[in-house]
């Protein structure tokens, strides 16, 4: 009277603390969303600080923003949006029972775009910032207008894009693991939860950048 169905054949990937695969799937999804809320608050501390200092020191922030090149910010935004598309297509491939090569193709493309993002950032932005001497605490010899405030702004720039990049790199690691799991036939149209919840993480990292771009690169306009 009190038993629930004892499972005969265990579905692929089933974990025994759950009663059934449906519960497991729901739990995994909810868990990732709750984790993403923690990430909202984590980045949120920086966004809060940014909001306050931008309100109090707008001129400095405009000056600081003008040290950044819009074309790289915009290109990287496009790269990340493209990577979100490829991630969504990778999950869709699993959902529709495509062969693993198909799934792996989209995952690898996503990784390539993510790596491109990091590469562009390092080579064309941060390296150039180093050469130009606008990395606070590391290599700083800016003496244009509003120097203290520009230093503050550049702190925000590096902290926020740096934390974002760390999250990207972790995402690349997760994608690599997913590629291996897919190659080992761990997923099917019935079970692809790790892909799905990793996708949520990846899209979140994209969304953070969607805000970082206008907030860091486009302060005060370029007119």
């Amino acid at each position: 009277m009190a038993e629930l169905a004892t499972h005969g054949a265990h579905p692929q990937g089933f974990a025994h603390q759950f009663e059934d695969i449906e519960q497991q799937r729901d739990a995994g999804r909810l868990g990732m969303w709750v984790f993403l809320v923690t990430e909202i608050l984590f980045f949120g501390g920086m966004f809060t600080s940014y909001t306050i200092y931008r309100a109090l020191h707008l001129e400095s922030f405009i000056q600081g923003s003008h040290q950044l090149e819009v074309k790289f910010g915009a290109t990287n935004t496009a790269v990340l949006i493209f990577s979100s598309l490829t991630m969504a297509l990778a999950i869709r491939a699993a959902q529709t029972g495509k062969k693993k090569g198909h799934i792996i193709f989209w995952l690898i493309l996503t990784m390539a775009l993510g790596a491109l993002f990091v590469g562009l950032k390092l080579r064309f932005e941060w390296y150039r910032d180093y050469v130009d001497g606008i990395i606070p605490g590391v290599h700083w010899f800016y003496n244009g207008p509003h120097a203290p405030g520009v230093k503050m702004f550049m702190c925000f720039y590096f902290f926020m894009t740096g934390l974002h990049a760390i999250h990207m790199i972790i995402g690349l690691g997760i994608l690599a693991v997913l590629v291996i799991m897919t190659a080992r036939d761990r997923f099917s149209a019935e079970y692809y939860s790790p892909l799905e919840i990793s996708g949520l993480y990846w899209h979140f990292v994209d969304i953070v950048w969607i805000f970082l771009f206008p907030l860091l690169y486009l302060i005060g306009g370029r007119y």
Partner: protein
Amino acid sequence: MSTAIAEIHETPAESGVNYLNVTYGIKSWLLTLDHKRIGLLYLGSITLMFFVGGMAAVLMRLHLVEPQGALFEPETYNKMFSTHGIIMVFFFLVPSIPATLGNFLIPLMIGARDVAFPRLNLMSWYLYITGAAFALVATLSGGVDTGWTFYPPYSSTYSQTHVVVVALGVFIAGFSSILTGVNFIVTIHKMRAPGMTWFRLPLFIWAMYATSLIFVLGTPVIAITLFLLGMERILHVGIFDPAVGGDPLLFQHLFWFYSHPAVYIMILPGMGVISELITAFSRKKIFGYAFVAFSSLSIAIISFIVWGHHMFVTGQSVYAGLVFSVLSFLVAIPSAVKVFNWTATLYKGSISYEAPMLYALGFIGLFTIGGLTGLFLAALATDVHLNGTYFIVAHFHYVMVGGAVMAYMGGLHFWWPKITGRLYPDLWARIAAAIIFIGFNLTFFPQFMLGYMGMPRRYAIYPAEFQVLNVMSSAGASILGVGYIIPLIYFMWSMRYGPPAGPNPWGAKGLEWTTQSPPLTENFETIPIVTEDAYNYPSEAAHG
């Protein structure tokens, strides 16, 4: 026929297999995925940290018997109170009930086999001990002297102590909290047994759920705050440095955005325990179940909008001071609701005074005092006088020690037979509870008076006219210390020599009491189907 729970197992503890004896060896513990074993891993490490933090407190109180300080140079005294605060807040109080009792009980109470993410659960413990290791190493190499609040510019620029290492330890331990919170939220939402609706849950679960909301929403902010502090200290770049347009108060906003809700992380689980103890030892259903449940959620939510009351005198604007003062009065309301409901539960209950109940009754009185004195501090005008004095120290020790630690002790005593399958000697337990109660009040009540008279906190020396009260406080601290050591002894004794406990030595309601003591690894042989409300003790009318 009203059998609500399927099949009560009367397996004797000494002959059956249970989660403790099913496998042996250090690997089976260090790589366990069983929430009950993880709870015990936490119990051991948290107890260790409690005694480390307690040592710092003992040394502080010994030092303060003399107005000019009996033991330390002021710089060393500063390290003592900082260490005491950091270890007690981050490595004892925050994880105490959630990580030990929460981990152990939540799946049992809701009728599940484990938490939603057992591997994350184990990782939480490893993160906790890694963070604790950083903090301990830093402490042994000289610690920090910034206070547990790490305010810049002292912590970012001027302190010559191991700020970054300690901050890193707290940062890592924060992730332990976050993962625990995620695990508990998902477990409670998704893994309740059939028939276990939200409003049939034990109030301990509501309290743990509310606590988990705070874990998830608050802890990430202290993480980023400590990161920013570390960056400022290492790179000498100023987010909080006024010379470049920064504001030290921004640190305080970010710090207290977590740290105020953190104090509710410390008290809410305790309140959940008290709901369980009061009902069990008055053999009566809780008065106003929905009110108590919703008050837990209200406390969690309102706790996030009051943090500025820690900043009334540090430079916050008058406008914000007004806002936060009004909001801080609000947060007292749900706490008061709980106290009234517990009291009403006691009324006409069939009360017995075993050790857990002594702790619960002590909690109600001491928490009320601590909570009411919080209102003194919420009022702007009185806070100006009392801030930075021993009044604050007394206030928070009343709620955190007289409240949270008493609840933790009560909970440990209540569920000890379930966890270990053994009974502890109740006479010694009651003696220890009385010693703790007396020692606690002797330690901290004089501090209200000292604070009112103006003795500042965090000072290594004090004016001679305060000596009598300080000596009383230190005497109380020694008694309190003895009170805490006694349970350590009899709990350890009971694990080998205590009489076996049956499945339900207290005759309490709740799914955890329908299993054997200690429980099976998988908790239940068959998942129960729940058809009755929580605390469904027979009412007066049903008595023969």
